[in-house]
């Protein structure tokens, strides 16, 4: 009897062990999925791109200034495209950095809680606006404004691209910079205030310098986002056909062609297998390498920041501070030059010089102004920055709402498009978007949650977690058009899926995977260690603990991550453009058929169907409402969660 019992016990323990081990293996597999994906992206881009380095020569490809793949003879020089990408990005940063750092300081240091509760989600909303909607706005409003107010022949220029990308980068930079500022220890501020410094002195001399590496990382992440943006840039930058390095280089009204725009424009019509096709994959490879480099730098900086916070501050912080100061000085100079020069273009020499004199006088006088007045002025500037951001948001949203409100009706939402989308509704596009996003989340959620569980629960911090995390970060920084190309090369051509719902779903899933991993990890980490220990002490297995104790309280956080992922997937055009979508009023019956989707429908209406103004504005508004609605749900869940969860 006793023997039997013991055997039974042993058996069940063994069974339990097998279950535990297999779960661990499954979780491990999902954890390394991000790494596998990033490597297969690189592999497939290289597989279809390396031929161009053979036919054209690597050096000629990188240094040639003429991009004319269909000419006779063809020339494949990507240098001017790379310069175009960098110029637009630099311009975007000049616009985005002051505005977003100002906003970050305002949100974390100055705003009363009630205002913060409104402004923070409002800026995050800016991130939720789909890039096609930005492009739509930029093409019609921004370029016209630039053309008229600066008296140029055309407003499509690198300035237009920079302004649009700057606006798009604001939310990324603001939220990461705000986190960095928030993580500055309270004691620093209190110490500074106790020594008699004003609030502004504390912010400018203590808080910002100690958050500097975090802010730098924020800027770099924003930069990565801007480099990879496709749809908006494609619509407003002008795209001179052979690529163009502006002459002089500071001529902001010259049109430029970026890497992403070239891909977005030419990929659709190119004959696959031709040299032109390989050249485009070569471009994608360059783009990926640039963004990966930018993101790796950001990861390293953020990693150092964490180490610094972990270790006691015995290290001399003198050196980084000095370097930071130098960086800041050069940054100020660059910004100053560009501002002055733009001023000159818009107003003329006399006004510029008089403004410069006033500024110089102000600069020397400012030494004699009391700290309190300086504080007043500084806060005024910061508030100006945040007001600018809010006004930009207001202009974009009110433009889209006022134009689209007339087009929306019950019929518009529930009927099929007729006469090529000029009349009728957008029902198939709505359904298609729903299918695409639902499929993407069904694939990405288990993978993402699994890999987050593996990272937080099953491993110690070490080489493996570092590799996996870097993989996820790199995936996060990969431009959406690169996902599109990868999906096209791998699913559509290599696996012979053709343009299909499934190919689009998987491509989107890969794109939102890092968001889900990141947010799930955060949610799991916020569950106190004592709960796990308690459960384990009671004899529960590891999986039982995770399943019954850790996951339930982390669920709202995971849900927020999923919703953010959905929001991103709904608005994206570039990844599905080459993998899944067709422009038609047709609802797929299986995952192997193509679909229509809202952002693509809007893109096609704006670019290919004449006389469809009404439907364009209506589709833009529906897309905006959908994305905004999804983000609102995420924000509400987050706030609710913050209020109710108290340990």
């Amino acid at each position, binding site marked *: 009897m006793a023997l039997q019992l013991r055997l039974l016990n042993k058996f069940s323990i063994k069974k339990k062990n097998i279950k535990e081990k297999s779960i661990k293996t499954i979780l491990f597999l999902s954890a390394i999925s991000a790494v596998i994906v990033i490597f297969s992206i690189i592999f497939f881009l290289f597989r279809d791109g390396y031929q161009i380095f053979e036919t054209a020569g690597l050096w000629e490809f990188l240094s040639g200034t003429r991009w*004319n*793949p*269909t*000419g006779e003879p063809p020339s494949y020089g990507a240098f001017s495209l790379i310069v175009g990408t960098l110029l637009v990005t630099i311009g975007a940063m000049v616009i985005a950095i002051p505005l977003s750092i100002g906003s970050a300081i305002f949100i974390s240091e100055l705003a009363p809680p009630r205002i913060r509760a409104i402004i923070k989600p409002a800026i995050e909303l800016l991130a939720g606006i789909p890039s096609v909607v930005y492009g739509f706005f930029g093409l*019609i409003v921004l370029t016209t404004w630039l*053309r008229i107010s600066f*008296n140029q*022949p*055309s407003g499509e220029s690198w300035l237009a691209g920079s302004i649009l990308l700057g606006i798009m980068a604001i939310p990324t930079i603001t939220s990461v910079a705000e986190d960095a500022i928030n993580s500055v220890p309270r004691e620093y501020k209190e110490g500074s205030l106790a020594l008699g410094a004003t609030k502004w002195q504390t912010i400018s001399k203590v808080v910002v310098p100690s958050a500097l590496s975090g802010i730098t990382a924020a800027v770099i992440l924003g930069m990565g986002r801007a480099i990879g943006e496709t749809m908006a840039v*494609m*619509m407003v930058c*002008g*795209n*001179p*056909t*052979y690529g*163009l390095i502006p002459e*002089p280089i*500071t001529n902001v009204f010259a*049109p430029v062609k970026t890497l992403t725009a070239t891909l*977005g*424009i*030419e*990929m*659709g*019509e*190119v*004959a*696959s*297998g*031709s040299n*032109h096709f390989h050249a485009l994959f070569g471009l994608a490879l360059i783009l990926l390498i640039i963004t990966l480099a930018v993101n790796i730098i950001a990861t390293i900086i953020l990693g150092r920041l964490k180490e610094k916070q972990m270790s006691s501050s015995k290290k001399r912080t003198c050196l980084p501070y000095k370097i930071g100061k130098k960086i800041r*000085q050069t940054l100020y*100079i660059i910004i100053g*030059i560009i501002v*002055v*020069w733009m001023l*000159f*273009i818009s107003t003329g*020499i006399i006004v*510029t010089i008089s403004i*410069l004199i006033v500024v110089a006088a102000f600069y020397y006088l400012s030494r004699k102004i009391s700290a309190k007045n300086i504080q007043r002025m500084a806060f005024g500037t910061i508030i100006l920055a945040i007001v600018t951001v809010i006004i930009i948001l207001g202009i974009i949203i009110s433009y889209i709402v006022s134009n689209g409100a007339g087009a929306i009706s019950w019929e518009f939402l529930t009927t099929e498009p007729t006469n*090529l989308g000029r009349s009728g509704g957008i029902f198939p596009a709505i359904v298609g978007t729903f299918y695409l996003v639902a499929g993407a989340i069904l694939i990405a959620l288990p993978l993402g949650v699994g890999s987050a569980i593996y990272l937080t629960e099953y491993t110690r911090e070490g080489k493996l977690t570092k590799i996996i995390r870097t993989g996820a970060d790199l995936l996060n920084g990969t431009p959406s058009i690169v996902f599109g190309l990868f999906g096209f090369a791998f699913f*559509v*051509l290599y696996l*012979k899926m*053709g*343009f299909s719902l499934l190919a689009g779903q998987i491509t989107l899933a890969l794109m939102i995977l890092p968001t889900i991993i990141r947010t799930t990890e955060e949610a799991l980490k916020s569950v106190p260690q004592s709960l796990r220990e308690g459960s384990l002490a009671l004899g529960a297995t590891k999986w039982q603990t995770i399943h019954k104790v850790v996951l339930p309280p982390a669920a709202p956080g995971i849900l927020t991550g999923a919703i953010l992922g959905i929001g991103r997937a709904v608005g994206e055009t570039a990844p599905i453009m080459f993998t899944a*979508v*067709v*422009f*038609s009023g047709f609802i797929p019956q299986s995952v192997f058929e*193509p679909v229509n989707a809202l952002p693509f429908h809007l893109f*096609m209406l*704006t*670019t*290919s*169907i*004449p*006389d469809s103004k009404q439907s364009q504005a209506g589709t833009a508004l529906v897309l905006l409402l959908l994305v905004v609605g999804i983000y609102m749900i995420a924000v509400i869940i987050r706030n609710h969660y913050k209020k109710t969860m108290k340990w």
Partner: protein
Amino acid sequence: MRQIVKKRNNRKLRRLLIEIIVIIILIITTFSGCIQQTQGGLKIVVIGRDSASGTREFFWEHVMGKNDFTYLLREKNSNGGIYQTIIQTPGAIGYVGFGYVDSGVKALKIDNVTASVENVLSGTYPIARNLYLFTKGNATDVAKEFIEYIQSTEGQEIVEEEGFVPLPTSQPYNSSDKLLSGDITIGGSTTVFPIVEKAKDAFKDIYQQLSITVSSTGSGAGITAVTAGTVDIAMSSRDLKSSESDKGLVKYTIASDGIAIIVNLENTYVDGLTMAQLKAIYKGDIENWKDLS
């Protein structure tokens, strides 16, 4: 004490250096700004299609004589993109299919011939090309019927409705006692897309058992797809290239497309251009509208 003085001197020196650099750069940028003063008249903003487009290839061969475009040619990836830019840019010139010409823009006469369907049919309007469907091997079953439908009188009416130029001759479509079912997929040129999409709807009214999917991915992608067998019919706004010609594709001409040269309504300088002037504009030899009137 000495150290402090030294430090302060250092700092002053550095600030002086920075100020000098700033002033030098200021002067340079000021002068570079002076050079590019705008002159009178209206600068021409040259708009065209992307290098992978069939329309652009046609334009390059027949108007440019395979000469290079001006480096300032701004690319749009669609007819709609060109139209949108033309209506909001006074100095712009672009080329689009006839379907895109409406009261919002001005279509220029070429060699004194108005851009119209009649003039393309009579052969006097110089900028027109054919639109094609391709199948792998001879078309069979549904694909064959569908192509016949588009080439029929009913199909050619749709061609005209969408602003394209119909085939010179066509017979009424004969649908008597044919029972068609199954599904086909069609992909390719964005230019041909509106015709096929509309014809599909009408065709499905005759044969209700059918399922037809049309996607607009661009001529190149369409031809690739039909070669690989992922679609049944490819739409194309260009003929096969040498690299595509030995893949066993069969060509069906379904319509012609006149290409209109359009400018902004505010452009009072010209009403028509000669082919030579058009070429000079797209080559970048003529940069201002006032040089033309």
